[in-house]
């Protein structure tokens, strides 16, 4: 298992419904990843605006995404490769 800390901006297509947000697809280095499952979603309220954080499963690997509500930008925080 390989863990890479990235913290890089990422393009995400997500569903916003009611109070929830669910990432569906994201693009990284020219490749599109389909989110197979959301492993977990938690809200970090430590800073001035909440940050929605997700652990998602895509193509057998685990990706940690975050949505900063202050500027509505998505970030890829970490990837855990099944190696």
């Amino acid at each position: 298992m390989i863990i890479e800390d990235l913290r890089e901006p990422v393009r995400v297509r997500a569903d916003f419904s009611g109070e929830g947000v669910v990432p569906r697809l994201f693009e990284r280095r020219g490749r599109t990843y389909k989110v197979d499952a959301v492993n977990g979603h938690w809200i970090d309220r430590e800073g001035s605006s909440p940050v929605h954080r997700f652990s998602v499963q895509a193509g057998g690997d685990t990706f940690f995404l975050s949505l900063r509500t202050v500027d509505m930008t998505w970030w890829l925080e970490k990837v855990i490769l099944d190696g």
Partner: protein
Amino acid sequence: MSRKEQEHDRCIVHVDIDAFFASVEQALVPQLRGRPVAVGSGCIASCSYEARAHGLSAGMSLGKARRLCPGLVVMRGSHGIYRCFAARVWELCREVAPAVETLLDDAYLDLSGTGRLYGDPRAPVGALRRRVRAETGLALTAGIGPNRMIARLASSDAKPDGMLMVGRDGVEGFLVDRPVEDIPGVGPKTAELFRKLNVTTVRELRRVPRETLERLLGKVGAALYERAYGRDTRVVSTCEIPGTISRETTFHRETTDPVEIRGMLYYLVERAMKAVRELGLVTRSVAVKIRYADFRGDDARSRLAAPTDLEGDVYAAALELLGRLHTRRVALRLVGVTLSAFRPARSDQLGLFDNAEDDRHERIAAAVDEIRSRVGFSAITAGKSLDLLGRLRQDSNGYVLRTPCLTK
């Protein structure tokens, strides 16, 4: 309602998040599920049940853990993630119970007086456990009893991922044959004393007269006498005045460097004092704990001249204690700070000699807290903890310590 009726109506629930840090890692990273997982760096802060099956437990060095369990997966851990998960679990608990007292990875819920609303308490507690599982992926073990002690013991028997209710009528059978160490307040020293008296079970403890226990152990002896009969009047306190606030960590590398040790001591004081101010408290007592590389350790406590919520006074006292404790020429493995004797800051008596300098420090501390709560703890690095820059990695929540610290 009379006091006796109130006592009869008490229903306390103790809930415990099973293998908390490791379970969060397994919930978020499916590759870890079913595998032995430990969280920590240097030593185990938390480990999964798969790891426990190999004899691993919290506090064990990772070197030893890897020898016992070669397939062990070690995760560094993230205090920020665990804090968010704990907050969500306690939020769900507060939707069920009128009073909730939260600790590190466990909590007490007071369901007294909710009989007409819920009927059998197992129904709402079972629903709570299912909801926690569905929303967070975490297993919550629950013990239900007529008081804190019985609820706590019931949850410990129900682990992992279970629920056990001990009714008022079942307390006698549940308690009498348990080892005396199960009674809250019986630590290693008291257990050793009891062993010398041939007291190893609760049944045997009951044979010791109350007066004898009081003579041996003072007020604690009287409380132990009551608890041996299943009586525990401690309330579930929602008031956030903790008995102690502790921050401790092991060093990434054992060290003799006074700059690093003092820097870490200051950082731990800072973290603890931030918690003190967030609760609107002042502290009157500080203790410092050290452990040497050879695992020998010592601690010392000191009473402050006046209650305070500022780092400066507490750090000065802590530094003096550290100087008194660190007498051997051996590297340190761990340092820790514990604050106690709290009271609300507002009730603090006005001093005769309060001065503008104190006001200025209070305003600075408030401004620093405000910035840190908006941007993250690392937004400002201050005082002696500046000496840790370059030695320790920082994320937005502060320095990344070897042992993830989530103490209350």
